[in-house]
């Protein structure tokens, strides 16, 4: 729809620029469609389509520094938490966003603002690094991974959960103990790749 509206809008504008009709009432109305209404539709639908795409794993993987992370998440044989969650249809193609977006009322906004920071760092620090970001600074989270993200799905009130986590239940609920302190096989392949790279750099 956005592309069709863009094509119509461009056709009207080109018609005006080439034919140069007098600015009469009809021309003004046609131009209002070409310069106002249709571009507005392009902008709105484009924003929605763009926003939807930014949730997807291919979008995250479009920066080469994420290559090792995305390959692992998409590996059907991998047993990492990222891959297991990516195979869950609830996460599916949006597994990166599901775990790494902020889980609060303005979560989507703060996540997208952080995305702009990613882009800034990508351009200034990682653009000329190796195929998987080799040679660039170590990739790390801006802030600690909160348990609330896991608790979107994993209820700490479930009977089995309470049985298996009885000794630290309150600390987990309060965030004093992080889920990934114990369940730390989140991105093992990617982190191993980075560790090897650091070793090679040290030599």
């Amino acid at each position, binding site marked *: 729809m956005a592309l069709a509206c863009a094509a119509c809008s461009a056709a009207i504008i080109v018609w005006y620029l080439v034919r140069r009709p007098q600015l009469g*009432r009809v021309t003004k109305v046609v131009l*209002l469609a070409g310069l*106002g209404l249709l*571009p507005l539709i392009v902008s709105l639908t*484009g924003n929605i*389509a*763009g926003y939807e795409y930014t949730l997807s794993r291919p979008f995250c993987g479009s920066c080469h520094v994420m290559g090792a992370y995305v390959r692992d998440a998409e590996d059907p044989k991998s047993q990492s938490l990222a891959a297991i969650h990516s195979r869950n249809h609830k996460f599916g193609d949006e597994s990166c966003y599901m775990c790494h977006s902020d889980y609060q009322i303005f979560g989507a906004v703060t996540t997208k603002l952080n995305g702009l920071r990613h882009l800034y760092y990508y351009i200034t620090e990682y653009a000329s690094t190796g195929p998987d970001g080799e040679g660039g600074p170590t990739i790390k989270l801006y802030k600690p991974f909160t348990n609330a993200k896991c608790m979107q799905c994993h209820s700490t009130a479930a009977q089995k959960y309470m049985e298996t986590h009885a000794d630290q239940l309150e600390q987990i609920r309060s965030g004093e103990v992080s889920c990934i302190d114990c369940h730390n096989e989140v991105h093992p392949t990617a982190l191993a790749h980075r560790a090897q790279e650091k070793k090679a750099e040290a030599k």
Partner: protein
Amino acid sequence: MRHAHVEMLVRFSSLAMLVALGLMVLSLVFPNPLFLVLAMSIGQGIGALAVALYLLAIALDLQKGASPTSNDAGAAGEEP
């Protein structure tokens, strides 16, 4: 004189909108982070400027009121 300004504003607005549309379409066809940011910031900024210029041109044209160059004789004499 003013008519020439109005025409110039509309032409400039048209060209600016073509640039804005190009950026927006680019982000739809090749949705990578840089193009998306360009479309949603610079693209839409230029687009908003183009609309504002067009509305300004129309306002100036209406202000001219009954001057002979701006009379809206309807569809009759305006289309090529």
